[in-house]
């Protein structure tokens, strides 16, 4: 067995707020192998982005902090409460792309300058003209037409899809082992989303990058992920191989999520089996299982005890007291 690129053990983090400490991610564990994609799925506020930021050491200071747990990168401790070697790794070995490329790029600098800045950081020894050639190479790699012209342009002159491509090119400038993609296609049109997903898939096969793909769209998960972690209110609800998850979703939340997507091949104008109620506020989770107040199958046990992550066979894990009886 090869060592996973990234291993997260019992990661918990949260924020200090006016109303006291709010835990946003609770005892999250997962690992990712080289060349694989792990999907972090859940609705807004379930802690998927905070997990990514915690891994990158980018939790907003001073309110946010890692409460416990360890992140290992290639077997080395990357971040626990103190993280000395994070700077070394971040960007070069692990890099990140964000949802809104317009806010992630600097609007007052041309694309080229921003790309060269990244190249200069990873390969300070190479000459300026070579840096430009590297930048051109990178833009070509991410499928930007007329790259020489684009280098001189500013972010606002590019379309959303092109901006995301530029952001990806900056992210892969250091040939990272792991790319953390936080909803990279959510702000894009479906046709452009398809282009970006294709690009990420190709980059992954060519360079063997591992990827954490954060999204709320189960369709995108099915397209790009190998493993999936379904999060609900900061906790793992279910973890499985992507085929398994879609064939036999075990957790009532995953089942509900899948049933509530309108499908193209389903009959129209019929009510969707929606999950009733709303996601609880993180500071005010129900006792026991955090999904218990919306779950069709919850009973007294669910309201008292928080279910541990249980093994449902062949790497499939589920945090539900009743998974066996749900079929």
């Amino acid at each position, binding site marked *: 067995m090869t060592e996973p690129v990234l291993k997260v053990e019992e990661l918990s983090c949260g924020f200090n707020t006016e109303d006291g400490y709010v835990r946003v991610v609770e005892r999250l564990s997962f690992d990712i192998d080289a060349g694989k994609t792990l999907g972090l799925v859940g609705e807004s506020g379930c802690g998927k982005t905070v997990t990514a930021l915690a891994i990158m050491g980018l939790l907003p200071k001073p309110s946010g902090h890692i409460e416990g747990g360890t992140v290992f990168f290639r077997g080395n401790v990357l971040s626990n409460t103190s993280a000395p070697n994070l700077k070394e790794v971040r960007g070069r070995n692990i890099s990140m792309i964000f949802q809104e490329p317009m806010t992630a790029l600097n609007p007052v600098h041309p694309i080229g300058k921003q790309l060269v800045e990244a190249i200069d950081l990873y390969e300070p020894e190479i000459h300026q003209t070579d840096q430009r050639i590297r930048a051109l190479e990178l833009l070509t790699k991410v499928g930007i037409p007329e790259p020489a012209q684009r280098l001189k342009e500013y972010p606002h002159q590019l379309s959303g899809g092109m901006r995301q491509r530029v952001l990806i090119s900056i992210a892969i400038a250091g040939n990272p082992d792991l790319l953390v993609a936080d909803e990279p296609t959510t702000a894009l*049109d479906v046709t452009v*989303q398809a282009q970006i997903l294709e690009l990420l898939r190709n980059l992954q096969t060519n360079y063997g990058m591992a990827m954490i793909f954060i999204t*709320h769209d189960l369709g995108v998960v*099915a397209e790009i992920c190998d493993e999936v972690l379904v999060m609900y209110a900061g906790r793992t609800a279910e973890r499985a191989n992507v*085929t398994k998850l879609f064939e036999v979703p075990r957790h009532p939340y995953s089942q509900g999520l899948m049933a509530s997507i*309108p499908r193209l091949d389903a009959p129209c104008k019929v009510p969707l089996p*929606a999950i009733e109620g709303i*996601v609880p506020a993180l500071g005010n989770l129900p006792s026991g299982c955090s999904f218990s107040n919306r779950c069709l199958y919850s009973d007294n046990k669910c309201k008292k005890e928080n279910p541990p992550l249980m093994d449902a066979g062949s790497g499939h894990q589920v945090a539900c007291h009743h998974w066996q009886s749900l079929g």
Partner: protein
Amino acid sequence: MKIPILEVRELRRYFPVRTGVFLKKSGDVRAVDGVSLKVHRGETVGLVGESGCGKSTVGKTILNLLKPTSGQVIFEGKDLSTIGRAQWRLLRRKIQIIFQDPMESLNSRHTVGEILEEPFIIHKLGSPMQRRAWAQELLKKVGLNASSIGRFPHEFSGGQRQRIGIARAIALQPKLIVCDEAVSALDVSVQAQIINLLLELQRKMELSLLFIAHDLSVVRHLSDRVAVMYLGQIVEEASSDEIYQNPTHPYTRALIAAIPVPSPKNTRDRAILEGDVPSPINPPSGCRFHTRCAYSRPDCQRKIPKMEEVKGNHHVSCLRWRELLHL
């Protein structure tokens, strides 16, 4: 032949582009360029397309929030461009709109009660006591607690705020509601709840809906008929089942192919649409889609395709649709 409740004929809406020191008009953004569509009583028509295709402008022009450059909007047999202010006031009760972001469309300094009573005050209906009772009834109709009448919009979740937006839209018993990306900002589980609510209200109140969105699977689920827009024009229109089973326009096909399907075993071959949507300031000559179309021929650059009937109620505007049927 039934008379449609809403008929839009050759609607055009241009926005001037001004450049230079004297802001001389240098061209037009042809946001909507010759759109015709009909909505019948109790029917939902979906209008789908990528960002910038002009779908929201169609919605706003129907409500006269934007004045049409040319073309007609006919509601219940009356041409809306010829009627005066007083008549508009009466008509406004019958046509309502729901926006994407309820946080922006609800006044944050007003309580839910004030927000819901406002339509009655504007139209001078009822006494203060009655209006309060009506507001409470509206809240119940959209699945909210009548006691939340004194709360402010920020105290609600996104889905609940959208319910308030819907309650306000149905306050005056409208005949037609334009839903402009009404569920796009919501999480999947909440989106399903709102879709169900719209379906239920439509059945109970015999509402006609014009449902504008970028997500074809959501649009299809809610609609009886779907119109696909590209660069200010409708390129295909058909029943919801037909548009998915027999998409005829290459753009519709590409749009369907680009939607990620929540099933990892899906082996659909996908033709990914290249490039971005061209600028509506200088739309491509001939068929506007020819720059991105996989089937375009030299002819497509010159001839402007007309809407042709594929079969009853299925119309497409493509020069080569007959040949493409067998591909």
